[in-house]
């Protein structure tokens, strides 16, 4: 269970009303990671959707930091939805606290609350546009 007030400040869940925020708070786990520990491992099928509540995380491929994620950002969803292994490591930068949906809970969560799926799509679209601009 995740603290409901903390969850209410996360953009991904901004469209949920009170009872539904409670429901999501009861669906997610609260997990903390010390500095440097890995949350997602390249080469392994991912364990969950991670939404950063406090702290930051580093996305690393072959030793190169590709992005730094901050509170409100999320990761881990792509490999669950595609059904493939993770293509990057994600590690804690300082103390990191995340709300976590287990792999098996993600699709039911998105079906139940399409507003979360739409917020996720928006972020995905921005990431894709950023990647395309970078390549052109």
């Amino acid at each position, binding site marked *: 269970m995740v603290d409901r007030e903390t969850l209410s400040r996360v953009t991904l869940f901004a469209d949920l009303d009170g009872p539904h925020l409670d*429901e999501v708070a009861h669906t997610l786990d609260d997990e903390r990671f010390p500095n440097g*520990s890995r949350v997602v491992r390249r080469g*392994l099928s991912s*364990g969950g959707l991670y939404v950063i509540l406090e702290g930051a995380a580093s996305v690393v491929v072959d030793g190169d930091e590709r992005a730094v994620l901050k509170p409100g950002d999320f990761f881990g969803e792509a490999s669950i939805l595609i059904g493939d292994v993770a293509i990057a490591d994600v590690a804690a930068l300082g103390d990191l606290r995340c709300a976590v949906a*287990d*792999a*098996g809970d993600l699709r039911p969560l998105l079906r139940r609350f399409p507003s979360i799926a739409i917020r996720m799509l928006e972020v995905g679209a921005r990431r894709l546009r950023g990647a395309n601009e970078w390549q052109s």
Partner: protein
Amino acid sequence: MAVVERPHPPRAYDVVVIGSGPGGLQTSYCLDRLGVDHAVLSADAGPGGMFQRWPVFQRLISWSKPDAPAPRDSVEYERYDHNSLVADDPENRALVPAHMGRESVFPARTEMEAGLRAFEDKTGIRVRYGCRWESTSVGEDGFALATSDGEYRCRVAVLAVGMTDPWKPDLAGIEHVPHYAETGAATDYRDRSVVLIGKRNSGFELADGLLPWARRIVLVSPRAVQTAVLAHATVRPRYFQPLEEYQVGGAVFALDAAVDGIERTAEGGFRVAVSGTTWTGSSVLEADAVIAATGFRVPLGDLPQAGLHTVLGDRVPALNAYWESISLPGVFFAGNATVGALGLRRHGVGSTSTSVRGFRYNARVLARHIAERLGRVPQHARPLPEDEVALVLAGELRRCAELWGQKAYLARVIGLDGSRRAFDRGVQPLSHFVDESGPDAVAVTIETDRDGVTFPCVYVRRGGRLREEHLDPHPLSEFEGEPYRRALAALVG
């Protein structure tokens, strides 16, 4: 009258274990076997104090099968006995079924307590009972633990204190409501209308126990019962009867709603205001009695003030793969206080650290880890020929009780040095193995997905790169045969 000397007087020890439930006893047994100097302290008067109070309705939810495909004194029998502590010596195995009747495969809590007491007596574990841990000072080379009997100093502290503090969420009016731990006798609820806040194990345990007594039972919490997940969960027997009564239209309701507030009525009853989650609208539930079946927290004393990080609404310590606090090195946890170590969340199925079945193996791995850290034993590294690795691993998929008891959390590990030699590295937490930037190695686990399919999984680390490989399931879970040996040989070779 003879004066019985109490063991473990206050002084400096390498390790102090706090708690005399199954987690504390198992840890002490394993530390003893490794020759680690330690004291075991307990505020209780005897082993397994929790079982004198809970579960409220007597029987545990984990089973032990009296007769099974393996003899009781074998390691293989542990797969069929989820309640006994584990021992190296055959005569000290399977002590819970030895104290059970045949009325049920779920032990009554008196039977569980008798099994623990027998383990303590037969293995010679010594506990200082009636000794309460009161406060903690953190020093450069360890800890000073103030207790009701004086000060203990140690390099490593192991807290096996259970999840025993009643916990209630912050809801308006919750102070009017007794906690699960304060539930009265079933007869107190005769012909009464009862609201249970919480739809998880303790809520359904109460619902099941009150079925013959209460007039109406409403269980309420925001999230729907996960029946698909429950279908494969050990706890499902508790849920069967209340859910069946709900589904056929009886006097039990499993309501998906957030609780807005609770009020006392002038007549001594309750009004519980709720807002629907899987349904639209709100309602007020009238009840003669309300119980908060909202769970427990780990009694952490002053450790949060000393810097111990917690999770799950500050209810449990945040732990690394070896059940050590992520923020207070040297403080370890055993027993069901290890529930905050979630591992890799493979297939969305958690570890079994909330039950003896899983945490007895955590304790064994933890004791070895502590002994290695303190320099009492060398690191596991028994050499074996590399062409035997597949054979050894296939055998372990059948025999290794840790793999079956802590699926996808504990792994059997063999190091490969590439020169025809391999090294047996024993049992390690899987997440430690995958995060270790060590030499080439292979690890195997047993895993069960959310559909209940059980299969072996192989993790190979070569040149710092990790890959996972799922082996096929077998209809009778026989993973030692030729196809598995061939698959393992191909992955290792």
